[in-house]
Every structure is written in C-alpha cells, then in structure tokens.
C-alpha cells in the first residue's frame, strides 16, 4: 500500500529551541498512528506541520503527494480544507455559531455548504438533537463530537487529532474513541497525539518522540 504521509529528516526550530530534530517516518493510507511522548517532545509541532499550520525549518513533509513546506498561502488553505480534518484537544469551535453552523463552516471553506450533509454528520456522532445549540450549551464531550463531525465533513485524506480526549471525562472519552475506531475501520488515516498509553494501544502503530527526535517507531504488524 502507498504511503499517504512521508516525513524525511524533519526539523523545526523556534529560535534556539529545536522542537523537531531530524524526524523521519511514513504512514500508509488507512493506518491509525498514535504519536506519543512527554510534553515538549514535538508532538503538536509535528501535527501542525503535517496539517499545514506551521512550516518546517528543514526536511520534507509529504501528504498525499503534496510537499507541505512548498505550498503558498492559498495552496495551504486549499490543502487544509481538502486533505486534512483537525480534531483539537480544546475543541476550538466558533462560540457564536451553532453546532450545525460550525460543521457547515468547514464546508463553506471547502466548497459550498450542504445543510443536509452537515445534519447527517452530526447525526453520525449522536448529536441530532443538539444541532441548533451553541458550543457554550454543549458538554465537553458533545463539543468534541461536533469537532469530529466537522473534521469528517469534507472527507479528508488525513485526520489529525491532537489529544482528542485530553479534556474529556471517561464516558465522553469512550464515545470519542469509539468514533475514531469507526473511522479507522472505514479506512480513514488517523494521526493521533496522546499521552495515554491505553489510548495509544488502540492505534495500529505508536511513534514516540523525545526531545524532538524519534524515540520509538513500532513496526507494522
């Protein structure tokens, strides 16, 4: 199977701080990868570069054939809207838009809005009766499910989840992980940052970072 993500000797420096220091690995299409490591090990930086939110200092990050570092501003916007689905630890929903509008916002930036499809996406994460609620009226778990619906709505090649259950209680963590398992079984490629070993074990492979370097990369089964 072809690699969807290819990372070669990736470096990222913030002033004197080296967040990533020569990281290389690849991810096959349909794989679920858990990126683990202590705080400050470069996990989020890696996810940000793969998602086109940040640029590497050197090295190469290829996603579905696109060299992220070489994309210009509009190319990056198109890349993010078409190929990437983000799930953040802090949910990051627009507070003055309803759950439905938050999902449709991603559609708007991708192409055109489709309310029926957005409702279906919210239905899939079990929020049919919460479509018209504002984020402030939803629990943390519900907000994260809205974020999952938003990440899926444009059928991205790659789902980048940065500590998707970090702010959730056990019950909501279970719901979100169940959703991720479903997405994986449907063939979605997922890169998930997590601290929790128990969650990391759900993934096909674990990649561990330490001080910006690759500390462990499980081989494929």
């Amino acid at each position, binding site marked *: 199977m072809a690699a969807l993500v290819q990372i070669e000797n990736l470096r990222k420096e913030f002033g004197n701080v080296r967040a990533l220091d020569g990281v290389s690995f690849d991810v096959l299409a349909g794989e679920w990868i858990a990126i683990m490591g202590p705080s400050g090990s470069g996990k*989020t930086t890696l996810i*940000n570069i793969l*998602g086109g*939110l*940040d640029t590497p200092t050197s090295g190469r990050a290829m996603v579905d054939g696109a060299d992220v570092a070489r994309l210009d*501003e*509009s190319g990056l*916007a*198109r*890349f*993010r*809207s*078409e190929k*990437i689905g*983000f799930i*953040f630890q*802090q949910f*990051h929903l*627009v*507070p003055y838009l309803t759950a439905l509008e938050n999902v449709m*916002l*991603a559609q*708007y*930036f*991708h192409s055109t809005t489709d309310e029926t499809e957005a409702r279906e996406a919210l239905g899939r994460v079990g929020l049919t009766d919460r479509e018209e609620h504002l984020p402030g009226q939803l629990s943390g778990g519900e907000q994260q499910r809205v974020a999952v619906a*938003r990440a899926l709505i*444009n059928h991205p090649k790659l789902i980048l989840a940065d500590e998707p259950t970090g702010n959730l209680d056990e019950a909501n963590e279970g719901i979100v992980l169940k959703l991720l398992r479903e997405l994986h079984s449907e063939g979605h490629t997922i890169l998930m940052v997590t601290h929790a070993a128990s969650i990391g074990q759900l993934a096909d492979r674990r990649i561990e970072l330490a001080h910006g370097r690759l500390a462990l990369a499980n081989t494929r089964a």
Partner: protein
Amino acid sequence: MALVAVISGAAVISALLNLEFDVERKLTQEFRLLGANLVISPGSSTQPGGTASQSPATLSSPTLMSAAAVLPQVERLRTRDVVASAPYLYIVARAHDTPVVVAGTWLDETRPLEPTWKFQGNAIVSRDDATQCFVGRDVARQFGLAPGGQVELHYLGRSAQLRVAGIVDAGGPEDSQVFVNLPVAQTLAGLEGQIQVMQLSVSGTAAGISGYADELANSLSGYDVRPIRQVSEAEGNLLNRTRLLILSMILLILVLTALCVLATMAALAMERRADVGLMKALGGTISRIVGLFLAEVGALGAAGGLIGCIAGETLAQWMGHRVFGTSISPRWEVFPLTIALMIAVAMAGALPLRRLGKVKPAVILRGE
C-alpha cells in the same frame, strides 16, 4: 457599539437628507410669505426699482398698460404655481382734504398675495365690489376710521363713497394707503381699462420662477416681466447656504460614524483572532474569512441604516416643525440612499479587518 453608531448616524443623515430634498420647497414656501415675486410693468425705464410698493404720484401714458392686453395673457398662462395675482393702479386722491395714495386692485386677491399682512374687519370677496375698501392702519388712525365706517375719496372732480370693510396692517408704506377694487380707482382716475403693474406670487424654485417669467415675457412683448430680484437672490443664496450646511453635516456625520465603526472593528478584529486562526486551520482563505466578517459588517450597516432611517423620518418631522413650522414630506429615496451610505461607511470602518490576514493559526491554536 458599532450598531448604535450606525443607527445614530443613519437617523441624523436620513433626517438631513429628507430636509435637503425638501428644503427648496420649504424655502420657496417661506419666501412666498414675502408676497409677490413677479412683476409685469409697461417698461423697465418707467419702473423705479421694480418693487411693488412704489406709488407714482402722477400718471402718464408710458406708465400704463391695457388691462385687456395683459390680464387675458396672464390668465392663459396661469399654472398651479401661481398662488395669487392682481393688477394695480395707483392714484393720489384726497380724503378729508388730505392727499392719500389709493391703490386700485383685486381686493379678493389681497390676502393670498400678501400673506403677512394683518387684517382687521371683514373680507371683500368680490373684485367688482365698488362699495367697500380697506384702509391702511395709519390712514385709519389719521381719519379715525374703523371697520364699518365711511370714507369719501376725491380725484380730479370725481368722487367715490366707500364703506371701510377692514383695516390693513402691513408694517410698511401700504399702511398709508387706501385699497379699493380696480374699477373704483379706474373710474376715479378716468383710466378705464388701464393698469400700472401686475403682481404675481409664484411658488417654485428660483429657476422655475425665472422660466415662468420668460414664458410670460414671450407672450407679453413690449412689457417688462421680471422676478423681484431681492427676493429671488435672497432665496437662491439662502438655499445654497442651507444646502451646503446640510451636506457638510452629512459628510461630518459619515466620517464620525466611520471612525466609530473603525474603533469597534479594531476591537472586534482583536477579539476574533482566535476564530480567524481556527478558520484558517479549517482551510479558510483570508479573502473568504474577511468576506464573512464583511458580510457581518454589511448586515450591520444595512440593519443600522434601516432602523436609523425610520428614526430619521421622525427626526425630520421634528426638525421640519422646529425650522419651518410644517412637516417635512417623507422622501422614499432617502431609505436606499441612507442604507447604501451606511453600508459603505461600515465597510470603510472595517479596514482593521485587514490585520486578520497576518494571524498565524498555529500560534492562535497554541493559545498565544
């Protein structure tokens, strides 16, 4: 805050625009209170100053016009803008052995022609009434006349006995005159069918009045037809100054509204940085993101403009009553104009949104 600024701005601008559109008509109405503004006379050389209150003591043929030549033409060209008109023949007759200026005119037209005059007594409703007259306030005081009293006028051996229907208080030289119907003056003077001047009170713009004067002049060749210059010039000057004042105020309010929106939008741009960072992360181009904010600002301008217009109509009515003593006619074109201005001003005030282009999504999402 921005909405309040736009509503307030729109209300005042809408009121001022209503006033601006109506000011010409209102000023024209105000100036019509000054009386006649168009005079037809035999010739410019014989009319000193062209003012209506001149009363020649002696008459000679160059100062006279044939009523049969003038009146039918005036009647033929009469439009709805002609508020009132009347011919005049002045003679200096004697009453109680004292010279007194007698003005022969159409007494049924005196009130509409001279709306500022105060009348005490009864109206004279027929221009053919040869038995009644009005006397000026000074004449009444001099001869001890009151409504219902009698006055006898003598001129070149002819006389007329008239009942005083009312006393005129014009606040000018007319207070020293006796006003009789035209046939009475013509008979006294032995000038049947003759008049000296024709005065008209015409409403409309200065240009409209001038155009009407030209039309009359074309039909009355050999006669002088001219607007009373002082009134027309004063009207034009006041109109221009009022318009300049109104337009300056509109401009000032537009600038102030834009500045207020600008300040609010600058704060909003800072407040929405996190949302913009997220939108960029979701694949939003800066043009689409700013487009969303501009749509919001445009809606704010349109809503504020609409609400402000409605408030402005009320304000315009109040201003009309305060300034002109009458209501201002609502002009529906003010609505789209004000709303368009408010949208434009809101958009101009949204310039700080350009800063959003510099937002780095990774930095924002890190919570910095």
